[in-house]
């Protein structure tokens, strides 16, 4: 398993792969944290706490699957938080006022997410705008759209159409939230796609060297749009998970999600410069961020410390990656 999880340039030897995998280190850190927390607190190793933890991580991990593809192409998408807000307000109003059924609501969520993602992709691939600038722009535009749709009111009394992927007991199978099962399955599919399909490999080629990728016959623009469109689909899904068992959808939905997602992807070992990274790493990164958040609450520490730890984890993860990169070049 570990020998193949790290997607490496072909010149690396298999032996080196197993040793260098960022996933391995993350698994180790997570294991140490979980054991320590299980021993140190009485509440961590309870099924309800673990289930809460996994549910709260699911939206970040879901969007992270798409974001991994985007960052592997050398891009970034900071508009996902606003995108989630648009999806949530439309879908929650649709199931409350329009009485939409689960498949209808899901379809609408995916279509909205797709549309928002395609707009990003087209601006970047065909408009020639730098990804961070384009998505900073659409971050504002989508947030504006969401706020207009909210009509200055939060959406209350949302029915529990999405309870199946929600945080309550109805959304669990064998004690694990369905949202997390869904995340694992989709991450597995994405991992296989990015590793074994030609069009998946194209993303890595693009991130390593766009000019060389074009000369190699890759349809650069189309593959770029595909990455952002896919992220949009995951934004749609994450919106459904966040609506969950219904109730209340607030106007600040999704704010700051983009930074959490980017943190998870980067901690998972994906290079922000593009060309390197895996979806599995992103899942582990999201789990680590979720575990730290949960641990700080359980230990009774100041909740403001969470962000300090996220910042430090990002620095350590990227620092380790930089050292490995330098060694690889020196070899």
């Amino acid at each position, binding site marked *: 398993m570990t020998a193949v999880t790290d997607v490496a340039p072909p010149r690396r030897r298999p032996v080196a792969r197993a040793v260098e995998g960022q996933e391995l280190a993350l698994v180790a850190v997570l294991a140490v944290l979980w054991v320590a927390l299980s021993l140190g607190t009485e509440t961590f190793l309870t099924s309800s706490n673990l289930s809460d933890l996994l549910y709260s991580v699911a939206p970040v991990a879901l969007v992270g699957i798409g974001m991994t593809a985007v960052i592997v192409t050398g891009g970034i998408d900071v508009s996902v938080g606003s995108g989630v807000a648009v999806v949530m307000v439309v879908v929650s109003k649709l199931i409350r006022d329009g009485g939409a059924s689960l498949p209808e609501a899901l379809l609408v969520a995916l279509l909205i997410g797709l549309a928002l993602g395609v707009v990003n992709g087209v601006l970047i691939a065909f408009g020639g*705008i730098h990804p961070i600038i384009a998505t*900073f*722009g659409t971050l504002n535009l989508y*947030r504006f759209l969401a706020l207009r749709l909210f009509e200055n009111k939060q959406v209350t009394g949302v029915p529990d159409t999405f309870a199946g992927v929600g945080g309550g007991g109805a959304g669990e199978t064998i004690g694990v939230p369905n949202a997390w099962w869904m995340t694992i399955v989709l991450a597995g599919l994405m991992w296989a796609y990015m590793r074994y399909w030609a069009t998946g490999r194209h993303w890595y080629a693009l991130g390593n060297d766009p000019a060389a990728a074009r000369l190699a016959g890759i349809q650069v623009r189309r593959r770029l749009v595909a990455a952002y469109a896919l992220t949009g689909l995951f934004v749609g899904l994450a919106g459904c998970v966040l609506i969950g068992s219904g109730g209340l959808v607030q106007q600040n939905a999704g704010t700051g999600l983009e930074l959490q997602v980017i943190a998870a992807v980067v901690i998972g070992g994906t290079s922000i410069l593009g060309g390197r990274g895996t979806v599995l790493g992103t899942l582990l990164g999201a789990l680590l961020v979720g575990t730290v958040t949960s641990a700080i609450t359980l230990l009774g520490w100041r909740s403001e410390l969470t962000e300090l730890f996220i910042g*430090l984890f990002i620095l350590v993860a990227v620092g380790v990656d930089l050292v490995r990169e330098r060694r690889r070049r020196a070899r």
Partner: protein
Amino acid sequence: MTVQTTSPERATGPDKPDRLSTWRRALDLVLSERVALLSVLLVVVVGYFYLLGRQGYLVAPYDTDYLASALETLVPLCLLALAELLVIVSGRGGIDLSVGSIVSLSGMAFGAMVGLWGWAVLPALLVTVVVGAALGAVNGLLVAYLGFPALIATLATYYAFGSVALLSHDNAPISTGPIQDAHSLTQAVSVPLLGDGFPDLPLQVATFLLPVAVVVYLVVNRTSYGRRLYAIGTNDIAARFANIEVRRSRFSAYVASGVLSAVVAVVTVAQFASARPDAGSVGSGMALPAITIAVLGGVAISGGIGRVAGVIIAALLVVWLNAGILLAFEGSDGSQFQLFALGALLVLSALLNAYSVRRGRGTG
């Protein structure tokens, strides 16, 4: 197209009538010179809202007094946009997402010195600037010397500095007597010499914004350091061969960004008569609007291109546009349309940047 890129002058064509080519040249100027385009836009925006106000479509008059008081929001935006200018121009994906958190943290430091320890304002201001420089130096160290991608390094420090700011005073603002007295730093004053006919200006425009903008302009355009900054942003390998200390120059851009953020911190504390631990992260944070204004002002995100005048006019445009939008709608609708205006301006100006680069000319 290819002919145009080799010799831009030929674009108008020798066989076209003279008058047409004058218009064509004016259009070319507006499309390729960011400062010209922004100035035209600024006149259009202010004129449009002025006319709307005269016809009674706005909830309050859009007059010179209102425009002058709107400058209050110009000061932090413009200073942070100048900070982003320095960092983005220094190249290699330069960007500073942490400015908001530096504003929060150095603002808390200023608040503690003046509000809790009873320091005088001036020494506190100087120490605050040192604090900002130190925080910027952390970014600079990570990016320039350790090779972290700027986006990630400053994302991490955005989290870390923001967290420390919240922890520093138990997540509570400092607004004791001395801090409230500091509000006088930012009161509106009538301009000497011009007298009563001229609208009252917020004091911080004269005491903070103008001097800092002039200094940044001189440093960027009139010192060898400024030219080195553009050199490393354009091509850092070529700059190294030209015997420029690439790392030190890039490092100092992040330090300067920290210093400018600290100045914003002092202004913000004085303006609200309170040092708030979340001053730099309310709403969508301070970094996003600052980066937006820098890009709108013609700063190329790839580094090496960008002018101080462009950034200042872009900041004026955004501030007066926002002020007009606020009057054009009732309730909170205005603040929502401000988001729209900011996003649309950013995307359109970036499209224009890409277009003018494709035509073989830089912007600004």
